């Protein structure tokens, strides 16, 4: 009988861990997408800084992998707004709003201002990435701890 109780408690602990992993996988997608947008804006910034070429040419020459990770799976994008609008977003809404603002205002200012705008948004995304990373780490510890404690308590209660 005791063996079944132990197995049941292990089952509770394992499902807790699986639940945590699944929840954290979504959070990791957010980080991966934030990284992709950081990469995209850095690429755009470098192209503007070094070659001063129009955005349609920049996006055309951008690594497909970065665009895919941004969630933009189609082809033929001409503007940053096209990329952001068509992407499947995992990142939080407040960051999507910031990205939309960047996308809509891109190309309306001269070079120096454009570069500053890129830097500002790269920093915003980095900040968001850092916060999300810290959140994941905290949640991982908390969920893991809770699952183990719950399983242990269950064993104690059932014995």
């Amino acid at each position, binding site marked *: 009988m005791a063996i079944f109780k132990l197995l049941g408690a292990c089952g509770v602990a394992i499902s807790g861990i699986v639940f945590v992993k699944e929840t954290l996988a979504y959070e990791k997608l957010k980080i991966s997408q934030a990284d992709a947008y950081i990469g995209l804006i850095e690429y755009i910034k470098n192209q*503007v800084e070094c070659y*001063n*070429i*129009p*955005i349609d040419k920049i996006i055309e020459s951008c690594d497909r992998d970065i665009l895919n990770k941004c969630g933009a799976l189609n082809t033929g994008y001409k*503007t940053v707004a096209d990329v952001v609008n068509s992407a499947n977003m995992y990142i939080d809404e407040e960051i999507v709003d910031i990205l939309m603002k960047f996308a809509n205002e*891109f*190309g309306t200012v*001269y070079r120096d201002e454009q570069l500053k705008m890129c830097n500002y948004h790269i920093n915003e995304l980095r900040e968001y990435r850092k916060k999300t990373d810290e959140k994941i780490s905290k949640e991982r510890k908390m969920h893991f701890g809770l699952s183990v404690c719950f399983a242990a308590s269950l064993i104690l209660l059932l014995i």
Partner: protein
Amino acid sequence: MAEINNKLTSEDLLEEIRIRVNRQAYIICGGRNVLLNIVISESEMQDILRSVSRNSLYAFKDSISMGYITLDLGIRVGVVGRASTEDDKVLGIYDVSEMAIRVPNKLFNVNCDEILQIIDHGSTLIFAPPGVGKTTLLRIITQKVSSGERGKRTCVIDTRNELGYGLSKKDTLVTILSSYPRKLGIEIAVRTMNAQIIVCDEIGDDKDAAAIIEAQGAGIPIIASCHGSSIKDILSHKGIRDLHRAGIFSNYVKISRGDALDFKYEIYSWEEANGYI
């Protein structure tokens, strides 16, 4: 567009569209200015500017500061507004208030054999008032001198990204130096590209004159254009006068447009032109 079509008669040729913030737009056709019942707002002008700059205003800062943007088809759009300046240099144009969109027209009956003949005898300066078709004629001449069995290596110094449009055909010996400052472009054409003919548009200032004199020292004929309504008018510009005194141009060609949209030429030799100084 429907209103523009209504205002045009069958014989009119649409030359330019002018759009203005909070003021009536107008078109230029057959030399006439025709007002339209179209008034655009500031935000609409911003949208148009964004569109003509391909959502990349930063990439056109230099040309906007010089008052224009060149579109893909070689169409020039004049842009004016409030200029931000420092030491007489325009840093950028803000609050764009007016745009002039030049409409390229197909020219019929373009016979430039006369000009092709005189080019064989030395450098040629083509002049006319704005809007007559100097750039179009230069393109046609470039196309002709650089193609065929006796085609020559022709370097086009396309400072405004306008002249080179349509010249990159497979069977021509044209080299296009896009967006190069004219002086540097001419130097490259002479020193590295070993050009047999150099073509450049809208010359006139002292720097141009110095670069052209240097190129001529290398014995390379130049076909150039400049603004001006008469030979006396063009020779009143210091740069052109310096070039004339240096004996750079063997011939000067004044162009005008006839009724059938063909070009009319008035050719002046160096000696004839000298009489107007």
